[in-house]
């Protein structure tokens, strides 16, 4: 094969050893030349790459593109945003959003006075002296304002100050405001949970992996809050609590404690409102405790509904007198004790149950231990210690023992739902919830059925008539407790409550309304008892819940009403006999 002329040696012929040496030298020179050429080509290609391909072309492409500003505004992906908290339907209760926070590099600020004045003009809540003091410090980083609004950020950018810079920060937003503040809780400026589920599930929420779904239904929460506040205003109360609970699962659908607070901006002045009366406050609940006394009596002693108890006169024990608000001055049956809410009658039942039986029953339904729930703001019940015989009598009508209102609602649900123990729970995820999964029975199905009848009787014929809503078979129990201050009970300082359950033939929801220190009004003829204060809001709540949850009212003939079988055992009941011997469960 002959080489092209370019590679042919010159015409001069050299032969022998010299020729060989020259060939080697030339070959090396060519090789080095090629290496240098390749090196230069590589350098040229790399220069081309850096300047044109990676430098200029993308820039030109971005100019032509509508989304050209994206790379400059890249979202920081350092720390995951704190997880959402939603209600049971996915409505946001808390969410973290990226916002800009303003800091200063004061080495680049030449006229601090002018900059401070401009910043105060944009954000009037800043103090000029404070801002100026910060700007006059020599530092590369000092916070001026965290979590700016976009409007303020643009205004600051338009100032054109090189020493004012922004840093993206997560900011916790509570779209529903104060509506569920005690349950949702709040965070500090660095996003650490300081109350409610924000605190209890802080570690989980910080991972930002999944939203935390609560059992709360924000629509029912609003209804409860509206009606509770209406009752507090009407009776000039100092506060109140309200809750709606699914009696079969323990899921809390609404939980309100008034006064509440705006979790978006919790300040020192909000400190009293941070106290949750629903879960932290322990109260002598009053006559709503007769539900447990009656349930214990029926469960343990199996009395007939015709059995009578001596309520002819107050009970005097240990220098203490147990009397009735409206004395019957007669022998009365269990339905009558329940219907007129007789303290004497309840104490007589407690005598028969005995201290051990009643105390054990209270423990079984969870009234002697702190509430098991997914927030840390929980009050410890105040239980008589030592538990004397008089404690048994007073506890039977809800005095001398103090528990949280939500705990009471949970215990009522356990008695009413067929007898299965339920704990109030706030989170839907069964792995996270403290829902009782033991399936433990606290009363028999028969006792539970009898209790439904008694609760219904209170609404049809007793102290809770104003809670009735046609078609829903509401049952319930009023409670009016005198508050204890300094060891003495003040009959003008009351806790008036009503616990309603419906529909009584197959209970689904329990509703609690309690107002702290209500005052009687002209419309209530000066009364501020549970029947006047608590029962009407419960009725309104039941009526308002139905369209939201799609519960259709069902008209039931009088003879099929849950309370009808008990009518023979009450005065003026219909028809017929009274004080019969024990009857079976209908």
């Amino acid at each position: 094969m002959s080489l092209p002329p370019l590679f042919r040696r010159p015409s001069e012929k050299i032969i022998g050893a010299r020729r060989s040496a020259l060939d080697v030298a030339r070959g090396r020179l060519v090789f080095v030349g090629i290496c240098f050429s390749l090196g230069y080509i590589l350098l040229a290609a790399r220069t081309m790459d850096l300047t044109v391909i990676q430098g200029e072309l993308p820039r030109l492409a971005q100019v032509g593109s509508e989304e050209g500003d994206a790379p400059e505004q890249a979202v920081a992906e350092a720390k995951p945003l704190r997880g959402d908290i939603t209600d049971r339907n996915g409505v946001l209760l808390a969410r973290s959003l990226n916002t800009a926070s303003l800091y200063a590099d004061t080495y680049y600020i030449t006229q601090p006075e002018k900059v401070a004045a401009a910043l105060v003009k944009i954000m009037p809540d800043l103090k000029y002296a404070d801002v100026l003091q910060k700007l006059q410090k020599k530092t590369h980083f000092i916070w001026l304002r965290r979590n700016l609004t976009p409007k303020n950020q643009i205004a600051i950018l338009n100032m054109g100050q090189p020493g004012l810079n922004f840093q993206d920060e997560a900011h916790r937003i509570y779209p529903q405001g104060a509506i569920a503040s005690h349950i949702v809780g709040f965070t500090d400026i660095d996003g650490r949970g300081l109350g409610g589920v924000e605190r209890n599930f802080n570690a989980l929420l910080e991972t930002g992996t999944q939203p935390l779904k609560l059992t709360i239904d924000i629509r029912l929460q609003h209804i409860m809050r509206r009606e509770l506040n209406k009752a507090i205003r009407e009776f000039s109360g100092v506060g109140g609590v309200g809750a709606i609970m699914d009696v079969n699962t323990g899921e809390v659908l609404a939980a309100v404690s008034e006064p509440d607070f705006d979790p978006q901006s919790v300040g020192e002045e909000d400190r009293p409102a941070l106290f949750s009366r629903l879960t932290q406050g322990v109260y002598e609940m009053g006559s709503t405790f007769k539900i447990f006394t009656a349930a214990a009596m029926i469960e343990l002693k199996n009395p007939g509904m015709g059995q009578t108890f001596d309520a002819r006169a107050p009970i005097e024990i240990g220098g203490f007198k147990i009397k009735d608000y409206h004395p019957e001055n007669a022998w009365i049956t269990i339905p009558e004790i329940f219907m007129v809410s007789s303290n004497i009658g309840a104490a007589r039942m407690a005598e028969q149950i005995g201290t051990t039986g009643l105390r054990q029953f209270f423990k079984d339904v969870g009234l002697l231990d702190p509430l098991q729930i997914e927030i840390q703001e929980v009050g410890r019940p105040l239980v008589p210690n030592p538990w004397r015989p008089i404690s048994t009598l007073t506890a039977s009508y809800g005095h001398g023992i103090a528990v949280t209102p939500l705990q009471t609602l949970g215990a009522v649900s356990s008695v009413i739902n067929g007898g299965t123990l339920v704990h109030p729970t706030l989170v839907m995820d069964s792995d996270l919830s403290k829902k009782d999964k033991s399936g433990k029975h606290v009363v028999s199905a028969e006792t539970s059925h009898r209790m439904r009848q008694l609760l219904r009787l209170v609404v049809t014929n007793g102290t809770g008539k104003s809670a009735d809503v046609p078609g829903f078979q509401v049952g319930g129990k009023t409670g009016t407790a005198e508050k204890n201050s300094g060891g003495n009970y003040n009959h003008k300082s009351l806790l008036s409550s009503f616990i309603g359950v419906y529909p009584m033939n197959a209970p689904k929801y329990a509703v609690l309304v309690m107002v702290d220190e209500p005052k009687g009004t002209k419309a209530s003829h000066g009364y501020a008892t549970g029947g006047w204060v608590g029962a009407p809001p419960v009725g309104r709540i039941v009526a308002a819940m139905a369209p939201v949850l799609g519960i259709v009212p069902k008209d039931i003939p009088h003879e099929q009403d849950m309370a009808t079988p008990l009518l023979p055992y009450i005065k003026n009941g219909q028809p017929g006999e009274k004080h019969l011997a024990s009857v079976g469960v209908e």
Partner: protein
Amino acid sequence: MRLRLSTITALTCAGIAGFLLFQTSQNVQQAEDKLRVAHESLAKEEASLRVLETEWDYLNRPDRIEDLAQQHLKMQATMPNALVKDSRSITSPPPQVEKKAIPAVVRETPPVATTSVPMPPSISNNEHKQFDDLMNDLATQNPAAGGGQ
């Protein structure tokens, strides 16, 4: 110096391989750039969505909706007795009474005008008239003019 064919081939292959490698590297870099831009754009969209969702739930607060409904709607909250379990149980309104049918014979013999039928004044012809003039014109029309005289 005599360059061997194998040397030239090797150099050529190396050059081609180098070029291909360079081109592949460039393609990868450009694809990564596109991916990065797409990710950034996605993150930006997600951030916008988060803001919008939050705003949606903020504006749909039950208390706000209730206040707005009270202000602007002539509607009340649904009462429980307005609910029914089965829509078929709602009684239908009574059927409307049908208008008496016109006898066929009448329909077959439409009335024939014996005189010229006066027409209402044309709007287009009265463009420059005031509204009151137009109404006066209409009022002066003889309603019986269509009948025989």
